[in-house]
């Protein structure tokens, strides 16, 4: 019997090491360790051994045989699993650089990108974002902004006038395409009570021949603050805070006297780049008392400042665009660059 066990172990171990697949190892397992397997059969014949001591001894060696064969089977099984995985992985090889599809994410328009970034900066400074119509009344666009009929500054805006019929005379309908975002100042003041802290980005229109630096349709962002005791120092400080937030550290700003009918005192604001050069950015000033009045705000109780500048120019400067018209051709080869 002991000899039978030894032979069975030898045969089983040989079969285990010969097994070349998981199926074969399963077969070996069944035929060796199963009830009808070789060692299983020997176990069944244990009962025939009469001598207790002998039966115990043979039983022990049978158990040992079970354990060693079973361990060998497990070990071989793990080996075979690893081999099969390796074969699967080897067979699934991909050259990732063969990938054929090009990137196809969409791109926001450069003006939108600059627009959103500006909104975010001003929201961070405590402003909300106001909007207004692009077709405006003469009153909102000019009259309420201290440019009554015949004001010479009106001539500088190159206004596009709107009518219901091409034979109307310009100005008859009192409608026009807004020449700046400033009418939103008036609409905001009329619709809400101070304190007011808004920016108003939007599309504006001028009767202007397109060239490398001008478009007849472009975008501005306007700021308006109306609160108690707002001073020109608050304007200068806000412009400076914006400059550092939007352009970054190392950029500073200055105000220098200028003229706009809707602000007084008025200023241009320039940005000083880290290399010391200056960039004219936009106009600003203290809201003119007449404009506050037009907005239903008492200038003795409240004061305010306003500022405005071009959004398109921000995009043009940031990306080194040499011809602003390229932003509006909607050529996918341009759009995909940003």
């Amino acid at each position, binding site marked *: 019997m002991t000899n039978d066990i030894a032979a069975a172990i030898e045969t089983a171990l040989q079969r285990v090491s010969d097994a070349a697949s998981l199926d074969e190892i399963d077969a070996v397992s069944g035929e060796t360790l199963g009830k009808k397997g070789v060692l299983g059969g020997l176990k069944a014949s244990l009962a025939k051994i009469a001598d207790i001591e002998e039966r115990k001894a043979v039983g022990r060696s049978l158990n040992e045989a079970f354990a060693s064969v079973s361990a060998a089977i497990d070990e071989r099984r793990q080996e075979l699993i690893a081999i099969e995985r390796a074969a699967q992985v080897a067979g699934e090889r991909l050259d990732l650089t063969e990938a054929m599809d090009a990137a196809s994410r969409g791109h926001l328009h450069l003006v939108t990108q600059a627009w959103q970034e500006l909104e975010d900066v001003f929201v961070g400074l405590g402003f909300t974002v106001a909007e207004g119509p692009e077709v405006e009344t003469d009153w909102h666009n000019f009259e309420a902004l201290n440019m009554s009929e015949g004001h010479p500054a009106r001539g500088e805006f190159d206004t596009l006038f709107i009518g219901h019929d091409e034979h109307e*005379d310009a100005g008859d309908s009192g409608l026009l395409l807004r020449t700046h975002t400033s009418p939103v100042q008036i609409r905001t003041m009329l619709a809400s009570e101070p304190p007011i802290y808004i920016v108003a980005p939007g599309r504006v229109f001028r009767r202007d021949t397109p060239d490398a630096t001008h478009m007849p349709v472009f975008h501005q962002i306007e700021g308006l603050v109306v609160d108690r005791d707002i001073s020109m120092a608050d304007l200068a*400080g806000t412009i400076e805070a914006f400059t550092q937030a939007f352009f970054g550290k190392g950029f500073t700003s200055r105000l220098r006297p200028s003229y706009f009918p809707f602000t007084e005192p008025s200023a241009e604001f320039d940005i000083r780049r880290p290399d010391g050069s200056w960039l004219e950015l936009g106009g600003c000033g203290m809201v003119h008392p007449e404009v506050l009045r037009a907005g239903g705000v008492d200038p003795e109780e409240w004061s305010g400042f306003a500022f405005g500048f071009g959004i398109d120019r921000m995009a043009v400067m940031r990306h080194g665009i040499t011809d602003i018209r390229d932003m509006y051709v909607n050529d996918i080869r341009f759009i995909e660059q940003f």
Partner: protein
Amino acid sequence: MKVLLSWLNEFGPFADPTDHEAVEAVAADLTSLGLAVEETIAIGSPVEGVISARVLRVEQHPDAAKVRRVWVDAGDGDERHVWCGASNMSAGDVVPLATLGTTMPNGMTIERRGILGIDSEGMLCSAVELGVGEDHSGILLLDGDAELGLSYAQVLGIEPDVVFDLDLTRNRPDCWSIEGVARDLSAWRSQPLAEVGEGSAVSGEARTVPVSIADPACGRFTATVVSGIRVGASPEWMVRRLEALGMRAINNVVDVSNYVMLELGQPNHAYDLSTIGGGFSVRMARDGETLTTLDDVERSCTVDDLLICDGNDVPVGLGGVMGGADSEISDSTTEVVLEIAWFAPLGIMKTATRHGLRSEASARYERGVDPALADRAAQRFAALLSLTCPDLVVHAGGADERSSGMPELIRSVDVRISEVNRSLGTDLAASDLPGLLNPIGFTVSANGDDVTVALPSWRPDSTSEIDVIEEIARHHGYGRLGRSVPKPTGHGHLTQAQIRRRLLRDVLVGLGISEAMPNPIVAPDTMARAGIEGETLRILNPLVADESALRLSLRPGLLTSLAHNEHHRRAGVSLFEIGKVYPPSGEGLPDEHEVLCVVLAGQDAYAAVLVWRQISQALGVGAMIDQSTVPGGMHGTRSGVLRAGRDIIGAIGEIAPEVLESFEVTERVAVIEARIDGMLTGKGGSRVYRPISRMPSSDLDLAFVLSDDVPADRLERALRQGASSLLVDLKLFDTYRGPGVLEGHRSLAWRLRLQANDRNLTDADIAEVKSACESAAKKLGAELRS
């Protein structure tokens, strides 16, 4: 507006034109004052190496017809030979010689160069080549007595100078003069403004030219008779100053007139006394009345043009814009009458615009000339003219007519120091104001904390307290204002609609669709070409006819963009735009609203539906596709309207083939166009959590045969209702038309995923759902396919 530094210096001095740093400081100061310096131009710097030389003899070389041989003496005793292409010089003349090594203003360097083997030792120069004049017909002939070997500039008396080109704002008419700029600059620098040109003209017997003003557009008209005129050339220095500021020298009378205008800002006009019929009348023109102006153009006037007429009511000048040709100063003029007037700005601006004639005079009048300046200007005119007319006599009895249009000369405004400090954030005292304001002619009378400020006649723009505060701010210095950041009481944020608009953009970009921005202004026929009906608003003064209508739809702009891309071999482009459309709404503002349009080139209507589903899901909006209505310009069997409740909010599907052809797009184009104002402002807020069931789910596949006349989404809605609360997902996974399915029908296969929140499903549950779906479908005429 250009100003000349040497001229400013007469009121200063401010800077030596050769001292670069001092010149830059002046430019910086001007900019700080709001007189922005656009450009600083150094002029009169001589070309080094060009010296005076006398022509010794001139010879024609037999083999060179077009050039001459010239021998010159540059004062060093050497005889130099040069070739020369001009022939206006002869022996004895003094000419500018560019010596070897000289670099000319055009960049050319003078080298020893030979013709026919004979070297040239320099070059003789024309006025143009040296940048001292416009004459290029010959060599510049210098004063015959000039010392030889001197710089030509020294011989000509040219000195280095600087022109500042100022970008003046509309509120500074006073700075359309040298004196006005100098006044601001000296106040800024706390130095006195020097007086110039105290007159020394002889005054004579009274001679009055009668003047009548018939319209308040002319507020003041003075006419002074000046005799003893000898018309001739102006002094060189005057010519140089006029030319440096872009004016041509004509003769001493006209030049002095222009000089006074540039210096003091007072336009004026000298008429030959013998041509004006003994008097002036100022009146509005009669419609169609003509006048030939000094530029020899016949002007046809309207009743809005102001005319200066002579004693016989014949027009002699377009008031405030340009004089007439017939009363022009001639060589034989001996007596002139000097007109100095004040005109209302707006009328001048309109006349100048109408006639397309912007003169130096109109530029000043339309901004506002000092109404008190006439007497000083007349004195300055006479004093300057007497330099070239020693016998000049200014006659007493000059007319000074004024109308109701004449501005008030004495004006004042009260200024509260509290208002100054509130507006500027400063801490100024009333006693600080005289030092800031008096030097610029705003005269302060103290009155405790509130002051009264007399406004100068040359600042018509200044009328109110805030105007004076601006002057205080300017002369205090914008750079010295403090910097504080106001604290908003609320927090900064985007509105719900603005946040949702950004979400919409993000969804589209994530789907690979890029944002375009076509022009919202289109040609009058563009909407019709795109099959979109409706009247458009029109631009009444378009720059080009092709851009004169306001769009009703974003489709045409995007189709044009697709065509452009196709044309550049980029097919299959996907674009979107979020922008306004402007349909008219009777009177007043149009029904302007925001619209989204998506175009997918090379894709079919299903692609548009898929994008719409993504948008609907992201924004939580539902709109049904209704193919029973085909929107204009859309494909007849592949399009429908988007219906939200009763409202049609847009169109979806494909562009009609004829529209594609019209826009020269060859690909199929899937499209969505929808108004988004409702979608953005619609129900926002947070979505409420629905617990995910932990119970197992079961799938049930059901295929129905349905008539092609019934949209699949109707069946979908029926199944949703039928399947009740156990349905967690419903998907159409197959459609089939063909053998086995009735003609005009299709089979639609749906997979229903069923799940309960609290229990395992039983076969009975599933059977119940199946039968409920079957009967719901039956109401649409759909049969369960076995």
